[in-house]
């Protein structure tokens, strides 16, 4: 049987996207934790272009970039499909996945930016929340995928779990639940799915890590 390995980092939402997809499809895999400040030669060999996690290695062949990995996993193991079968519906799902992908690296910066730069990041967060509220979750759907979670839900995972920790580390509240009722419901629903619920990184640990990182960045800026 082909061996599946996943190179990851304990706090990365991109890594968790792949973990959830593999678990939803019941695919056993070996997980290898990477120290991102000291990347292994194997990781650099498997992902020489971006040098990042996650990297999925299937039968010795590496697949890089979380969304590329998700699509690959969905195609190789078609059980519990993560994308609609209809080409048009699929194109719409891919649009929202790309939207989330484009926003995610920007919004992550909230905790380590200040003043004008931070305000620009806040604006991006609000755009993402508004898009979810007014477009993606329209019709009072339980999940982006309808009755079951799909790749779009997984793509928006930052809102579900990482938003809170980033806000804590930044000392700034961006998300006001009463302004985004559909998103609030979605967050509860998403985190209640057993595979999600039992596979989430510890929030206190992330906040501590981000605060340390923020300190390091500010120290190096003033030096």
């Amino acid at each position, binding site marked *: 049987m082909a061996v599946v390995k996943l190179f990851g980092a304990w706090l990365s939402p991109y890594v968790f996207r792949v973990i959830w997809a593999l678990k939803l499809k019941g695919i056993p895999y070996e997980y290898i934790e990477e120290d991102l400040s000291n990347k292994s030669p194997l990781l650099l060999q498997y992902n020489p272009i971006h040098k990042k996690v996650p990297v999925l290695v299937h039968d010795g062949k590496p697949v890089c970039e979380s969304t590329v990995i998700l699509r690959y996993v969905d*195609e190789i193991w078609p059980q519990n499909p993560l994308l609609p079968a209809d080409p048009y519906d699929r194109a719409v799902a891919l649009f929202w996945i*790309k939207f989330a992908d484009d926003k995610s690296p920007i919004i992550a910066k909230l905790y380590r930016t200040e003043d004008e730069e931070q305000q620009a990041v806040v604006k991006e967060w609000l755009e993402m929340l508004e898009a979810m509220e007014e477009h993606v979750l329209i019709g009072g759907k339980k999940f982006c995928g309808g009755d079951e979670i799909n790749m779009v839900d997984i793509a928006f995972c930052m809102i579900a779990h990482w938003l809170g920790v980033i806000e804590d580390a930044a000392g700034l509240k961006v998300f006001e639940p009463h302004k985004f009722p559909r998103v609030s419901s979605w967050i509860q629903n998403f985190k209640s799915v057993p595979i999600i619920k039992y596979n989430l990184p510890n929030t206190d640990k992330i906040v501590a890590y981000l605060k340390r990182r923020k300190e390091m960045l500010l120290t190096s800026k003033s030096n």
Partner: protein
Amino acid sequence: MAEEVVLLDFWPSPFGMRSRIALAEKGIKYEHKEEDLRNKSALLLQMNPVHKKIPVLIHNGKPVCESLIQVQYIDEVWHDKAPLLPSDPYQKATARFWADYVDKKIRSFSFSFFIYELGGRVWKTKGEEQATAKKELIETLKLLEKELGDKPYFGGESLGYVDVAFIPFYSWFYALEKCGNFSIEAECPKLIAWAKRCMQKESVAKSLPDQQKVYDFILEMKKHFGNE
């Protein structure tokens, strides 16, 4: 059932060119609508309310936004002719990775963004900033050249997904070279050979604007936005 295909487009956009090439490869008849980006049509705003950008592919009244998603959609719906993505999942993943790489690197370095976001680093900046941008662009192009290797196309023996994703930017090379004062061919001869090979295909040749025309357009934009 008669298929109705409309493409909302803007002639110098490399993203629009991607969809033009895909439609041409498949021999699809479509209505091409040129947008004035300073005065976007009601149709564009209705069909792409989130980004308000071109290209937008409208198939039987339903919009598909984002150029690479359009190319994949076209490839799936009209799957009986000129396949762009390989059928093998691993090869497909590789193709998607490289198309994503093109999007991440080329766009952010130099090919910018159109009219309102115009300000690609190679021509807007001067001195050191420009030198850095040039260096990064060449590194990116060399990496793509390496990935191409000895294959005639990124897709192998025939034009594929990555070729369609990347070749439109060739129409901007002349403008970049003039503004940045460097030669891409000198740095990446194999890549230029690949580009010329692609240009021999009718679907590509009729989808890309003339390089001089693109350069003139950039100069107009620079004047308009007071860059010189």
